[in-house]
């Protein structure tokens, strides 16, 4: 059993068990902490897939920024208990669980169909050669990633910048309306 295999099974445990805890625990603070664990696990999965830069970005953006945002908002609310954790109604609950089951079945079916043709590698293209060479030499693919992002996807990158600006202004406007977050009306 190679090291990669052990690592994969360990990491999938690290990712899936806290993900279940996010959904099943009734205290939202515990859910947030479990979600942090899941995010760290996903970052480690990225690292096993040789996406080291993305692993770092995942750690910084998700576990650093987004989760701190979640926990701060949770602290703002002072929710010690979560009344009525799960949705009511036996029929609608059964329908929802059945919907989740159908989704899981579709995904498993799609994957098992895809196993017949496991890979779509475009052999011989210059990009594939370049990446294979980079992977063989042990170099990380951050340079290739940066070239792809800034040369081929520049428009999307700039649109994302504009989007982030709009989101920042909109969020401040939304949370400052009617006296801000500390309004005691």
């Amino acid at each position, binding site marked *: 059993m190679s090291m990669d295999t052990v690592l994969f099974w360990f990491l999938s445990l690290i990712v899936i068990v806290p993900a279940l805890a996010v959904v099943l625990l009734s205290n939202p603070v515990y859910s947030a902490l479990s979600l942090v664990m899941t995010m760290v696990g996903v970052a480690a999965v990225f690292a096993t897939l040789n996406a080291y830069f993305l692993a770092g970005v995942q750690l910084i953006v998700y576990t650093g920024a987004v989760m701190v945002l979640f926990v701060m908002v949770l602290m703002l609310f002072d929710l010690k208990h979560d009344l009525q954790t799960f949705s009511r109604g036996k029929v609608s609950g059964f329908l929802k*669980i059945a919907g989740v089951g159908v989704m899981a079945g579709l995904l498993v079916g799609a994957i098992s169909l895809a196993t017949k043709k496991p890979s779509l590698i475009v052999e011989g293209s210059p990009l594939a050669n370049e990446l294979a060479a980079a992977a063989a030499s042990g170099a990380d693919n951050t340079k290739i990633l940066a070239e792809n992002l800034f040369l081929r*996807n520049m428009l999307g990158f700039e649109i994302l910048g504009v989007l982030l600006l709009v989101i920042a202004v909109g969020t401040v406007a939304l949370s400052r309306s009617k006296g801000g977050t500390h309004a005691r009306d």
Partner: protein
Amino acid sequence: MQEISLLLAVGLNHYLILSAILFTIGLSGVLLRRNLIVVMMSIELMLNAVNISFVAFSKYNYNPEGQVIVFFVMTIAAAEAAVGLAIIVSIFKRFKEVNIRFFEHLKG
């Protein structure tokens, strides 16, 4: 013998199945939970599941486009979290509770 090799040789399908399990857990969270913050956390779970499958495809197909898409998805997810939490704060300010049934009173 097939089961043994399935356990030992980790390939693209293993990552896809991990991603599918994570996505399904997130979907069940969105459908079943009533707390708005936990619903948003479940949405983050689903986005992470999709990111895993993108990165796995990117590695096994030697194509960096997938990782670029993951960048974009992460940015959109951060923006979505900011806006969603602002909306949740505004709901809490009005109703003193964060339950999804108050969403219908959001207009006006």
